[in-house]
């Protein structure tokens, strides 16, 4: 029997697909990279995942686990074909343990659904990527996802207590558990952020945090990104760590307003969205510091979200911002660089200059508090030759960020998209150590091949500084 026949017999016809019309929609994620799978399996249980892994290993095909496909770095794209395991049907919250402030969930549970279910217990799951309406806990684990509120609360790895994972030989192991900080090597921490290269996670134990007593969300409007950046530096300089500190520039605001009518002023040069939370008294004091600092940095206008609905509206607009770019351009390339936050104004000047030089509009969203910038290069893929320019401009931006002491991804993962940039921030020796750890856990090399580590990727050498990432073929719909 072929692999498809074996798996169809094991899983049933509505859980295994092989025709191109049935699998072509697994060639993409939210990013630009593409790779056509040969097979797509939709298992419902750990035992089924184990059977799939064993059969795929016997057939010698690549195995790529996928959540909702909302990632931006090609992590869920089957770069070398093979079998995609969609975890979308693993969508049950198995337990909410109120007393121990944790939950046991299947990896296909949607991030926001978990926080909604935990809300009646006064709890929530802290990582809140902008995709949280659709992205899954499994995907968050794979990419060590961040989000606006990770500034004060930490990224996904800080909120994962344990995982159950199916390894290369089909065996299932449990790492970690409800009690935090176990002895020995932190293998749970190794799995988080490994982007599907070490196995398939089939269950996750997550930490839940108590909802804050009070929240104050301020929208401050500035004439320029420089003024807004000054406010960011001064806020942090005053010792304040807001729950979230977000910046958007003029071009980003124009798309956001067209989509959401959230009351973001389109004539502004930049806005800051600052959220403080905690105990009521403390929050009032912090909100007045935010007000004062923004005014002295030249804020034109300061608005406090008066109701939970007003606050939700501001956040919905911020979190839908990248997705709204389709209103002002057919395509865009969203980057995910990080710099020390004091370097933000300097980097932004470079981004503006690079955009002008390449004649490409660039909209900017920032998690300003932790120096994570998301420049979005807008383009129309139907324009001949434009992708070369887009890639070159992106390449320059990343190189500038690295020069400023930054790095190539804050929260979106390396995937395919940034694999050629890895040598820019890691030495050959660093990469070799990572490769040895990867091989020790997953010796077959068939789990998400071609991702994260360039030395293991077939066809990827160790490129020189400034090398271009793989180009998307001309004419492809991106």
């Amino acid at each position: 029997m072929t692999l498809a026949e074996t798996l169809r017999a094991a899983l049933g016809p509505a859980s295994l697909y092989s025709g191109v019309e049935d699998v072509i929609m697994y060639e993409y994620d939210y990013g630009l990279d593409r790779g056509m799978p040969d097979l797509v399996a939709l298992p419902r249980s750990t035992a089924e995942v184990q059977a799939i892994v064993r059969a795929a290993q016997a057939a010698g095909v690549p195995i790529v686990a996928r959540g909702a496909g909302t990632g931006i770095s090609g992590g869920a794209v089957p770069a070398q074909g093979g079998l995609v395991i969609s975890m979308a049907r693993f969508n049950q919250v198995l337990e909410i343990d109120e007393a121990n402030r944790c939950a046991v969930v299947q990896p296909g549970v949607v991030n926001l659904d978990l926080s909604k279910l935990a809300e009646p217990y006064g709890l929530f799951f802290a990582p809140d990527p902008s995709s949280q309406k659709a992205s899954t806990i499994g995907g968050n684990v794979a990419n060590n996802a961040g989000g606006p509120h990770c500034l004060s609360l930490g990224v996904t790895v800080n909120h994962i207590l344990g995982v159950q994972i199916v390894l290369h030989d089909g065996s299932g192991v449990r790492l970690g558990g409800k009690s935090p900080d176990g002895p020995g090597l932190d293998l749970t921490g190794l799995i988080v952020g490994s982007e599907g290269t070490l196995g398939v996670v089939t269950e996750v134990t997550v930490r839940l945090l108590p909802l804050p007593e009070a929240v104050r969300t301020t929208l401050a409007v500035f004439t320029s990104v420089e003024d807004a950046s000054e406010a960011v530096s001064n806020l942090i300089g005053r010792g304040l760590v807001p729950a979230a500190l977000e910046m958007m520039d003029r071009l980003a605001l124009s798309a956001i307003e067209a989509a959401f009518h959230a009351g973001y002023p389109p004539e502004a040069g930049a806005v800051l969205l600052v959220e403080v939370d905690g105990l009521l008294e403390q929050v009032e004091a912090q909100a007045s510091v935010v007000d004062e600092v923004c005014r002295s940095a030249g804020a034109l206008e300061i608005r406090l979200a008066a109701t939970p609905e007003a606050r939700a509206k501001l956040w919905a607009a911020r979190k839908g911002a990248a997705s709204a770019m389709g209103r002002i351009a057919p395509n865009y390339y969203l980057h995910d660089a990080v710099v020390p936050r004091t370097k933000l104004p300097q980097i932004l000047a470079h981004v503006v200059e690079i955009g002008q030089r390449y004649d490409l509009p660039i909209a900017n969203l920032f998690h300003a508090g932790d120096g994570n910038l998301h420049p979005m290069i807008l383009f129309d893929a139907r324009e001949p030759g434009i992708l070369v320019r887009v890639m070159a401009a992106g390449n320059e931006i990343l190189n500038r960020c690295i020069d400023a002491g930054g790095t190539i991804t804050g929260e979106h993962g390396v995937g395919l998209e940034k694999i050629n940039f890895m040598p820019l921030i890691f030495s050959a020796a660093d990469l070799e150590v990572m490769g040895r750890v990867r091989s020790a856990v997953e010796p077959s090399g068939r789990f998400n091949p071609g991702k994260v580590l360039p030395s293991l990727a077939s066809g990827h050498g160790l490129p020189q500084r400034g090398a271009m990432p793989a180009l998307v073929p001309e004419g492809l719909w991106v």
Partner: protein
Amino acid sequence: MGLTVVGTEPAAADLSQCVHCGLCLQNCPTYLLTGYEAESPRGRIHLIQALTEGRVEPNDAYRTHIEQCLVCRNCESVCPSGVHFGRIMEAGRAQLYERASLPLGQRVFRRLAFRELLPHRARLRLMFGALRLYQRLGLQRLVRATGLLPKGHAEAESLLPPLPPPFEPRWEVFPAEGETRYRVGMFTGCVMPLVYGPVHAATLRVLRHNGCEVHVPRQQVCCGALNVHGGEQVAARELARQNVRAFLGRGLDAIVVNSAGCGATMKEYGQLLDDSGAAEFARLTRDVTEFLAGIELQPFTRTVRRTVTLQESCHLVHAQRIKDAPRALLGALPGVDLRDMAHPDLCCGSAGLYMLTEREMSTRILDEKMVDITSTGAGTIVTANPGCMMQLQRGVRRAGLHSDVKHVVELVDEAYGG
């Protein structure tokens, strides 16, 4: 890419507006049910794009994914990039039926529905007259009890609610009660007068009671919505032309329609026909809840003792983006206890002909919906579209409940003692 917009091809600009972010996934009833990307808005757009590029074939698998879409347009409501999904899917279906050879049964069904029945009021009246007789004579009970019909037909037959008397207006113009404040047209549609006559009667009473002179033009025909959804634009255009002729030139302030599915299509006549008369017709079109919520209503005279839950019809809340009007009306009715269900804006699986053509998926979606409805404990389910009413009545029977299924305007009518 170099796509050109010709005939029924989906427009390249519409397709490229999707940035495939996936924020639509959790609002798609078929994705929620299957977890399968091919049954998601993003996946379907990708398929249609792939067909225009020649990367896939319009084979059975392709057809299944395109036809299993409810076109509820929930994805359109939540899309940050403002993708016109309904427009893409309608053109995508037209493109598919142009290229693919359909199985004989489906070709016959489509021809019967789109060409021979829906556009012809007399034929519809005859057919529903026969069905009414079938129910009155007790044949329905007999057939259901004996299990005489083969499974597929039995399920289709189970859709049919008990048929009340049809709506047969005796005049074309009904004067307002009291002072005439508005002159409105009333759109009656094809199947609705035959299956939901009392909803039309209630609409007419409520409008007249609130100072409307109501015109019910005899020359009006089916709105063409089912044709448009099924990718039959040519037949739909002819129907639209007749309706524009029937309603314009009467000096109307509004064309009121109580079927959300019809209303959504009528509001898009301007795009369908691209002429000034059609644009004017579209501009005048108002859903009955939208119209009533926008005027000063006469005081209510009766208490409506009902616990109510609202299923927001997709073509009202998503296609027409009318969310507040039905709630405002229900909230104003004395005695009504409105209890929200979880996901009131998620499709019930009716979706026009979908409940006949995609029975299995439609039923699975319905059963999930009935769980949400049952947990409200409401005794009355209200909605704003005849297809939804028919599907929910089936859901009530399947769940063994005794709930009433009503149109919003019927409750308004009750509050006036109707």
